[in-house]
């Protein structure tokens, strides 16, 4: 059962959440890493990835996503959010943990959430919480 703004909106069909440990993509090249992530998204699943992509891989993910909009049936893009493990969201939290993490990727204290835009309407975030708003 899913709640939306405090109201029950019933069961949502047609999606599942996949958790992926970073070790599963750690040894892949950037392009393969992104390909693997997008394949999960094309399948209509929400991916929760342990760790985060490198800065340039995040932009590459956006580029590849845009390249696929209109080419994969019913694919309109992605919703993406990175939560770092030290209580700070995104890049700046990680900056405090050192640039090495960002440049080498991984940052196993972080979590990356990626979902297809047809299912995830919005990932609302502020420094203290993150909300996944789903499409009806």
């Amino acid at each position, binding site marked *: 059962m899913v709640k939306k703004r405090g109201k029950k909106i019933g069961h949502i069909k047609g999606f599942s959440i996949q958790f992926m440990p970073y070790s599963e993509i750690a040894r892949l090249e950037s392009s393969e890493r992104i390909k693997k992530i997008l394949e999960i998204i094309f399948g209509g699943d929400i991916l929760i990835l342990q760790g985060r992509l490198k800065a340039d891989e995040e932009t590459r993910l956006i580029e590849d996503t845009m390249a696929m909009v209109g080419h994969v049936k019913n694919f*309109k*893009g992605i919703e993406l959010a990175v939560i770092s493990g030290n209580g700070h969201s*995104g*890049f700046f939290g990680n900056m405090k943990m050192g640039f090495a993490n960002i440049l080498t990727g991984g940052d196993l204290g972080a979590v990356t959430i990626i979902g297809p835009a047809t299912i995830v309407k919005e990932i609302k975030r502020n420094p203290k919480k993150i909300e996944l708003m789903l499409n009806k």
Partner: protein
Amino acid sequence: MVIKVVKNFFKRIFSNMFRDKRDIKLGFYGPPNAGKTSLANRICKDFTGEEIGTVSKIPHETRKVQFKEKVEIDYKGKKLLFKMIDTPGIATKIDYEDFLKFKVNKKDAKKRAKEATQGVIESIRWLDDMDIVVIVLDATENPYNQVNITIIGNLAARNIPVLVVGNKVDKRKADIKKIEAAFPEYDVIGISAKYGKNLEEFYESIFKLSKKI
């Protein structure tokens, strides 16, 4: 003959050196409808009398990177020459149906969506070529958006100086403090591109950043 060759060699070297130093590539990045083109237009109009592109309430109005070269900004007697680069808004999703709400017909909406996706790709590919980047955010929107964080993360990794601008401060919902809290490592300036509010502070920051190139 030898003297002429040597003279030309140095002339080329020096002219390249000075041209690169003077012609600062100033990129405007950010999410769609934040006011990148409005701000670039305001600057271009003030210093060249011409605008850089068209502005619209419909998202993804700018779908191709557009330029204005040799824009000489005069601030407190100091002058710097810029190449203004206005980029399409970066998004992670584009749905043609969103354009239908703006009374765009289905065929044009699909065309617009296709061009918008290509625009996002073009924007990202241009990141490497910038000397200074102005991240334009809508101050009435939540700044904790992964696209903003991703762009700034990339610029930091490339050592490109960044100025964060919160546009639309003329609106009641605008919250500059929220942007400052989201990007504590950067100078954040609240402006209104529409009404030309606080542009002096903006120019001051741009001149300050130009020293870091």
